[in-house]
């Protein structure tokens, strides 16, 4: 207890030096916390934006093999899927049934490639909130052949709301088809993904794909949040595989489930429709890899910064030891044990580390707050990592605790040798020493 009190008192004796040391620690924590906060929110934002674009968190696709062995995407009867969703207790806020195709849009010699999603606007009531129109709007989708495209696509085609354009595509079995769209609305540029996507009425998309009105290609279950999507995906897979043929989900961490399922599709032969159960995390496994890289980089930065800071702390504590050599001699003469002297130095180092860490966290909070105020707008290419045009940050308790723990341990290691040397001082020699 005495050591703690003395350590706190010693820190206040040399305020400037203590503040400088704590500032170095704070700087390290600030950098690492901001990177970690960005990485954690990065996954969340990308996942949420993808969930909006793909209209779901858990998906089921139907795959049929043609006579020549080509795979086509189709869901003809979804009773088994819906029954499985009930059995798996999927808490879906929305259930989306979409058809889609890669298309070339053409207008007077100009062309643009994009993916058109066939949407049932009556059931996907969340979609209007996600679309920010520059011109035209959802009312234009009353036209069966209406299409919503982004501003850059409209510019490339030289079209405005109300114009008619040709759409060239392949049917779900791969035959050439041509249709006509009427531009219902033009949305603000929503980054690279938005640039490549457009929305049309599902019944017209189905007609172009040569699907019947009740058929579609992918069903998406839109969950209340990102939490538990893998758990629900696995539950849906378990429930569905008892009812219909389903591609196995490779749940091992090292395998990419989508790639594993694609390999199965290539290798296997089957008749009728076989289903794939996918989650957004399966699609975004590469995003998770980016986050892992960011976390590793932040950890390396933390360690490199603290190796530098450790050198400073070691030198400072050696100076402190020499400055207090008589004081140490006096305390030792008055009965203070070697361990207590060593602990006195270590407590000082620990308090500097913890004080610096707290200050670093506060500064990181301020920095993240300021950065999240910057509005990057709706037309930024980094839209996919933003939330409503803003950077966001998310602190994970265990990650932050780990960083603080690493800082505390490194600081204690840095202070240990001077502390041990101080503890080893002979009291008589220490008292005789003149600076």
């Amino acid at each position, binding site marked *: 207890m005495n050591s703690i009190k003395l350590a706190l008192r010693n820190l206040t004796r040399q305020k400037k030096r203590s503040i400088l040391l704590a500032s170095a620690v704070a700087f390290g924590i600030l950098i690492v916390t901001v990177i970690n906060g960005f990485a954690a929110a990065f996954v969340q934002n990308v996942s949420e934006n993808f969930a909006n674009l793909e209209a779901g968190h858990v998906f089921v696709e139907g795959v049929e093999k043609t006579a020549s*062995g080509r795979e086509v995407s189709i869901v003809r009867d979804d009773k088994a899927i819906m029954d499985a969703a009930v059995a798996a207790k999927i808490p879906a806020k929305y259930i989306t049934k979409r058809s889609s195709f890669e298309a070339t849009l*053409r207008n007077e*010699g100009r*062309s643009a490639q994009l993916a058109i999603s066939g949407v049932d606007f009556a059931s996907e009531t969340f979609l209007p909130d996600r679309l920010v129109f520059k011109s035209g709007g959802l009312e234009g989708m009353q036209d069966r052949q209406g299409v919503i495209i982004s501003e850059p696509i409209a510019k490339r085609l030289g079209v405005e709301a109300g114009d008619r354009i040709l759409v060239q595509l392949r049917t779900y079995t791969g035959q050439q088809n*041509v249709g006509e769209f009427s531009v219902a609305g033009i949305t603000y540029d929503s980054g690279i993904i938005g640039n490549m996507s457009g929305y049309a009425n599902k019944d017209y998309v189905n007609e172009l794909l040569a699907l019947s009105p009740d058929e579609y290609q992918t069903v998406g279950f839109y969950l209340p949040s990102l939490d538990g999507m893998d758990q629900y995906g696995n539950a849906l897979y378990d429930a569905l595989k008892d009812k219909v043929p389903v591609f196995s989900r490779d749940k091992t961490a090292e395998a990419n489930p989508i790639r594993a399922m694609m390999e199965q599709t290539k290798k296997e032969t089957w008749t009728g429709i076989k289903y794939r159960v996918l989650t957004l995390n399966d699609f975004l496994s590469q995003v998770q890899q980016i986050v892992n890289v960011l976390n590793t980089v932040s950890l390396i930065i933390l360690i490199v910064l603290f190796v530098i800071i450790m050198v400073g702390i070691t030198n400072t504590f050696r100076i402190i030891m020499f400055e207090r050599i008589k004081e140490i001699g006096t305390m030792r003469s008055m009965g203070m044990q070697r361990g207590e002297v060593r602990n006195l130095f270590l407590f000082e180092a620990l308090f500097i580390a913890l004080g610096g860490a707290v200050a670093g966290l506060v500064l990181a909070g301020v920095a993240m707050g300021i950065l999240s105020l910057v509005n990057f707008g709706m037309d930024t290419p980094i839209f996919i990592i933003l939330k409503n045009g803003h950077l966001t940050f998310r602190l994970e308790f265990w990650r932050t605790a780990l960083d603080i723990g690493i800082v505390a341990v490194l600081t204690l290691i840095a202070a240990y040798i001077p502390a041990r040397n101080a503890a080893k001082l002979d009291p008589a020699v220490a008292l005789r020493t003149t600076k």
Partner: protein
Amino acid sequence: MKRTRIAILAAAFVAVATLAAGAQDFKAMLKAVDEIGSFGSQDYSATYSIVSEKPGENPSLIEVKIFRRDAHDQFVLLIQKPDKQKGQGYLKIDDNVWFYDPESGNFSHSTMKENIQNSEAKNSDLKKYTFADDYDIISTASGKLGAFDVWILDLKAKNDEVSYRHIRLTIRKDKPIPLKEEDYSVSERLMRTVYYLPNYINAGGRLIPARIKIVDELNKGEQSVLTISDVSVGKLDDQVFTKAFLERAR
């Protein structure tokens, strides 16, 4: 009386014309078209120069080398020009089509429905015809195209494996050689017209058009002209129809 005679004559004319048309075995004609475009037990190789024109752009040239062994439904397409794409190629064995990219050194699955680079021509345009296998004849008509008397056959796809569900094929009456092919989308919009220009190369006793013009009907002014040269029906090495050949070809 005169009116009755005219009516009888007209009816007789229609009947004769119908009989004449009915006498034609159009299925056999379609088979003959396929056979003239197929080399059977002979191998076939040729160079195709494809000049594509698009409004507002300079014409682009693609040169590809084709190797075919129709008896085994094997096909290799090797891009020679432009230099940027040189070495890329397609290999078809039975129903499998692979695309090879020398930059990555990887093979990926592809289809014969792919366009050759940025041209109007598809890989399938360079393989043997399979009209009789893939299509049913839904209507026939007699007509004239330039100096040629022709049969005009409307064909409907038997399966979903072909690119076009409906084709209108114009065939010379004197020989089972196609002169024109109009390809329609599923929605019955004319997408492209292929003109098999009537100057021919004799390859192993088969007449193949030396030039083919493909007009994009959706984008006015866009067309590709294929000129065929270096035609040979000599035996090709079995190694040609392997992935290793594409890997070494650059």
